[in-house]
């Protein structure tokens, strides 16, 4: 679908300048950043820090794939390998995926999208970034001091009584990082409830706000349970008492229950904001209101609600009662439906649109395909009998990487490209970024498709060495991983380049309808000169045309 048409309209580069005053330059000095209350600056701080951790986690992924190139345990020792995948898991889940879209793009946009000058609690917003950093540093500390090899799931009694690595440091790190996400979620909920500008009714909110709202609910209600679980693990480790230790009368399954009560909703914390990004982008690049706005909005809330009641599907073979296994399997099937609804609505948003294929749209298409696969393979695992054979194998690894990397990360990159001109005021090189999008997609398929087959063949996850007959597929997967790596390095390079040399973007390069596109880019510290009044639906392109006509006439 090579199409030359584009909606990008940049100001005349000869005359265009970045605005004199913007949130980037209204205060100078490192301190002005470290003590800022401005949600946009905090978003940038988050963006930098999660990118940092993403590449650390990615490095570990690379090392894992490298070790798995051959069946023999030849690159590193077994315990080193275990530390690799533990670090990969902890960093990617708690330090990248959970804060990725909400804390960066969400932090930057939600106040603007609801027409407010800032989040409700700027100081708490900053605090949550510092908590994140402290958590991150503690993880790095655990890593430097010799690593931790519990796996990111901290399964008891392994983590409490059978390992002498830095479990305590890592668990505390996650505890702290957890509070950072609680505060982010809390801030969003209050802002969305209390600080919407006049005329901004719930059903005029962009879908990005809806999905972040749903994710915030999960953060606020789920994370504390993880916190108390980790506290119990710590106490058990330190004082040797046994809430989770069968020899002392505890029940290890209780840990599983409490842990997954957070960690299953956590995957919706990760994916929901990504879905919000996709709604914005598909609408913008097909010049159309999102098909079935209310359906998409409510499906986000439905996912958040059902997402809380399916956690035991991580325990089907662990000896939960077979009756409650049935219940949880049924609920799992129900939670799959809203996701399907979203996908179809996005697809039909394209219908009768006027579609162009800029980079964010390419990433969004990538998301649609990969997320569909990820979601459907989730149904495999939700189905009791199938789960027995598939769980704890590479099938499940492939499944959640399709949802988390293929879905969430694609959405994140899509969003970063889409709002980059708004954040920095400059465009990125289009052709190069298109190349990156395609590379990522191909690399991803090549990396994770073979793992589905490996999984059904029975290769268990977290294996350092594996039977030789699995090698071919593992080599494929590793090859794909290198391509994927390139695909992720490219944006880092050209986005960095564009900071200085990118074309001036102007207020609204995409001709998008969102409030954030009606203000200058990069925005003022207070976002709006005057608090706007929302007088039209979200994604109202006629309104946009009207407005642009008026501008032309007023200018002329």
């Amino acid at each position, binding site marked *: 679908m090579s199409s030359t048409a584009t909606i990008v309209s940049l100001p005349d580069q000869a005359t265009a300048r970045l605005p004199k005053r913007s949130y980037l330059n209204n205060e100078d000095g490192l301190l002005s950043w470290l003590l800022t209350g401005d949600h946009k600056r905090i978003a940038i701080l988050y963006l930098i820090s999660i990118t940092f951790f993403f590449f650390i986690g990615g490095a570990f992924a690379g090392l894992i794939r490298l070790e798995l190139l051959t069946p023999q345990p030849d690159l590193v020792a077994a315990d080193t390998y275990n530390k690799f995948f533990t670090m990969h898991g902890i960093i990617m889940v708690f330090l990248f995926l959970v804060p990725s879209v909400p804390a960066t793009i969400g932090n930057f946009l939600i106040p603007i999208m609801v027409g407010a000058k800032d989040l409700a609690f700027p100081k708490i917003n900053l605090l949550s970034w510092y908590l994140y950093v402290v958590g991150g540093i503690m993880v790095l500390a655990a890593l430097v001091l010799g690593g931790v090899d519990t796996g990111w799931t901290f399964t008891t009694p392994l983590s409490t009584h059978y390992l002498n690595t830095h479990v305590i440091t890592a668990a505390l790190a996650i505890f702290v990082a957890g509070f950072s996400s609680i505060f982010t979620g809390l801030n969003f909920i209050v802002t969305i409830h209390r*600080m919407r500008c006049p005329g901004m009714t719930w059903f005029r909110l962009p879908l990005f706000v809806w999905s972040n709202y749903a994710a915030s609910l999960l953060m606020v*209600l789920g994370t504390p349970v993880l916190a108390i679980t980790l506290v119990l693990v710590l106490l058990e480790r330190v004082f040797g008492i046994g809430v989770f230790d069968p020899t002392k009368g505890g029940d290890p399954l209780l840990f599983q229950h409490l842990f997954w009560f957070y960690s299953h909703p956590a995957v919706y914390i990760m994916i929901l904001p990504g879905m919000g990004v996709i709604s914005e982008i598909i609408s913008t690049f097909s010049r159309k209101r999102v098909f079935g706005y209310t359906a998409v909005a409510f499906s986000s809330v439905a996912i958040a609600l059902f997402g809380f009641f399916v956690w035991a599907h991580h325990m089907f073979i662990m000896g939960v*009662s*077979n009756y409650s296994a049935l219940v949880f399997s049924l609920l799992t099937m129900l939670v799959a439906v809203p996701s399907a609804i979203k996908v179809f609505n996005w697809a039909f948003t394209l219908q009768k649109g006027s579609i162009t294929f800029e980079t964010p749209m390419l990433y969004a298409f990538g998301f649609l395909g990969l997320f569909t696969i990820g979601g459907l393979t989730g149904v495999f695992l939700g189905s009791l009998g199938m789960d027995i054979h598939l769980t704890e194998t590479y099938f499940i690894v492939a499944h959640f990487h399709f949802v988390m990397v293929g879905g969430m990360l694609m959405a994140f990159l899509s969003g970063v490209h889409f709002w980059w001109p708004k954040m920095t005021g400059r465009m990125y090189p289009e052709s190069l970024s298109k190349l990156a999008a395609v590379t990522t997609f191909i690399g991803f398929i090549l990396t994770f498709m073979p793992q589905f087959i490996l999984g059904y063949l029975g290769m268990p996850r977290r294996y350092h060495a594996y039977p030789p007959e699995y090698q071919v597929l593992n080599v494929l997967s590793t090859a794909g991983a290198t391509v994927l790596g390139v695909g992720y390095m490219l944006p880092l390079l050209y986005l960095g380049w564009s900071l200085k040399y990118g074309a001036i973007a102007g207020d609204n390069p995409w001709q998008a309808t969102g409030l954030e596109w009606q203000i200058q880019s990069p925005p003022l510290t207070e976002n709006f000169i005057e608090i706007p009044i929302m007088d039209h639906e979200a994604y109202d392109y006629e309104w946009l045309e009207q407005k642009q006509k008026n501008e032309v006439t007023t200018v002329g």
Partner: protein
Amino acid sequence: MAEIAHHHAEAEDPTNVTNPEHGSHHIVTPRVYAMVFGTLLLFTAITVIAAFIDLSWANPVIALFIACFKAVIVILFFMHVKYQSRLIKMTIASGFFMFISLIVMTLSDYISRSWGLW
């Protein structure tokens, strides 16, 4: 112009202002506080006394019922929820709902384990 006026009307529409869930601020008087305080102490006494009477299965039920009652009046009066907006009330409700569902759904597993074959 008509259009703008229309917009403006919309802007003034009370259901459309920044926070639809306004709660009129209400100052609770010391008298109410004192009454609540008395009730709490009274019920503390009652629950302690009840604990010393053997009512078999009813003991925990009564104790927890009294605890819930005390919690409710603290929430309603000390924490002003009685005079708060619908939003706050729903927030609290949702919190307890999640708490209950955590307990019920996890317990459902533990209880039904003995029914099964394994």
